[in-house]
């Protein structure tokens, strides 16, 4: 092994350890910084979004190249391993058809979830009668070409290790790979948000029965993903189940007990849950104490108050975030510097990984992303 490669290995291990300590709420020499900007990377590097979506190798190469260009010295890691085609993987997570660039949408536009009630009320009975995996087998053709989905999964299986190796060569630690969620999110994606929310008022007991049936599969998916990748952390998605969206009487019964069960089951296997929680969860932060201590990484998008998180959960879980998408679009480099400075001052120095909130958007100003990298250089050192 060359000296340069040796140095990179050492750097990678330093960064890995820094991230690990942060999640465990231990002191660190520097607040780690992670990249997250799926669609920003190709736009920044001048690649049409369709090419980025269609060719899986492009996703890996362009993401790593964007990170290098923004500042190879800055990034300790990347929020999720950039492995595989985005549209099939989003389809599996949302159970919705995803409109793709170069297909339904212009070449250089962003993919978008097509919100509609593809899943019908009678499907609840099908899930209960036939089982979740059997239901999915019949369901997928409604939202994606099944051959395409299979090919995509095969590509990931074959190339997972090489993508991990590429990240290592660049010195970037993939914080998580793959994902799972609670039954609520899958059903909500399939039924559409408006229909599913109304189902929750009309046929709550039936849905609860379906969720209880689905839950072991969600747990199994999370464990399986981590075992296959060897990365001991998975995304646990929370989008439409956010506190600000759901009435407490529903949330207390249909949302949070499932997050508790899922995160504890993963923690029992040594797997960290990266709680990718979009929207505003402030109302229920006290309840997060019921999630496994030091085995969750709260990944918010700027809408949940991280100062409040620090106050309530500072000795319970670390956070990753949360430079907001809107600020990356509309702000100035000075705004970004101030945001990062204040975030580190108020939420650091332990238990914080600096990262764009949710995902740096496709039209984030390049100078703002560069400012985030520069602000990390300036402020992340722990004195």
């Amino acid at each position, binding site marked *: 092994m060359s000296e340069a490669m040796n140095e990179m290995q050492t750097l990678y291990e330093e960064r890995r350890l820094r991230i690990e300590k942060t999640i465990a709420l231990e002191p660190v020499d520097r607040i780690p910084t992670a990249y997250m900007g799926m669609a920003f990377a190709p736009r920044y590097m001048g690649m049409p979004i369709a090419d980025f979506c269609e060719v899986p190798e492009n996703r890996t190469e362009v993401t790593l190249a964007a990170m290098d260009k923004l500042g190879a010295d800055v990034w300790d890691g990347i929020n999720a391993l950039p492995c595989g085609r985005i549209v099939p993987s989003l389809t599996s997570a949302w159970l919705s058809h995803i*409109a793709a660039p170069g297909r339904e949408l212009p070449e250089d*536009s*962003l993919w*978008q979830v*097509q*919100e509609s009630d593809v899943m019908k009320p009678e499907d609840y009975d099908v899930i209960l009668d036939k089982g979740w995996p059997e239901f999915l087998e019949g369901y997928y053709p409604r939202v994606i070409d099944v051959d395409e989905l299979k090919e995509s999964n095969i590509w990931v299986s074959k190339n997972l290790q090489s993508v991990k190796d590429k990240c290592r060569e660049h010195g970037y630690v993939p914080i998580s790979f793959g994902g799972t969620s609670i039954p609520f999110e899958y059903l909500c994606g399939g039924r559409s*948000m*408006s229909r599913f*929310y*109304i189902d*929750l*008022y*009309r046929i709550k007991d039936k849905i609860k029965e379906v969720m209880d049936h689905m839950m072991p599969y969600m747990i199994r998916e999370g464990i399986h993903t981590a075992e296959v990748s060897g990365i001991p952390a998975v995304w646990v998605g929370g989008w439409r189940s956010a*506190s*600000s*969206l*759901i*009435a*407490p009487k*529903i949330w207390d019964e249909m949302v949070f007990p499932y997050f508790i069960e899922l995160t504890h089951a993963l923690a029992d296997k040594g797997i960290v849950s990266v709680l990718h929680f979009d*929207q505003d969860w402030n*109302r229920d932060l006290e309840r997060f104490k019921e999630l496994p201590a030091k085995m969750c990484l709260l990944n918010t998008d*700027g809408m949940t108050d991280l100062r409040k998180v620090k106050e309530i959960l500072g000795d319970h879980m670390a956070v990753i975030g949360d430079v*907001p*998408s*809107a*600020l*990356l*679009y*509309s*702000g100035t480099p000075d*705004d970004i510097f101030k945001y990062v400075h204040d975030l580190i001052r108020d939420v650091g120095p332990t238990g914080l990984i600096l990262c764009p909130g949710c995902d740096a*958007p*496709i*039209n*984030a100003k390049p100078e703002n992303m560069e400012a985030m990298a520069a602000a990390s250089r300036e402020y992340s050192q722990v004195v």
Partner: protein
Amino acid sequence: MLEQLIKALAELEEDQVLEIVRQELVGGTEALAILQACQQGMTEVGDRFEKKEYFVSDLMMSGEIFKQVGVILEPGLQSATQVCAGAVVIGTVQGDIHDIGKDIVVNMLKSANLDVTDLGVDVPPVQFVDALKQTKASVLGMSGLLTLAFDSMKETVGLIEEAGLRDKVRIMIGGGPVDGGVCRVVGADDWGADAQAAVRLAKTWLDIGVQA
């Protein structure tokens, strides 16, 4: 009985609301009076949302109930004349196909007795301008969930200026990532974090009274 209807809607008691509406119609109550009672119930829902007693799911459920009431009352309302308190044009801007937030706002605006022209999703700037000209609406709402929507919002505001309508229209924007900074960049007059904020803005601009 209409008091019960207001309460039932405010409590999101779907079956009870529909039953009372049917009973009232059979009993000879005018459709317009029943609708106005339901609008009061929806106002109560909005108030509870502002007080953080209700959440988005509650707004959606109330909208669903209100929609069903509208279907039941429709034949009786055709002969009635209800003067709307003002006109609003609304849509999700070009390049964005998300309609959930926009639809909640549309329901809440309608239940506030406003004449709403809903242009749907992925609406090009020129379509907003045409709709404003046709309806003479003085309030425009633009929605978008993606940050990409911000460019379209800005373009739309620009086209409204070019068409000479800017001083005749108050523009509000909303959607997941929208904030004051985005509002400034886009050139809108104000922004709303939720559906009730949109109703409040529209009512204020149309000068039709907002409860403190």
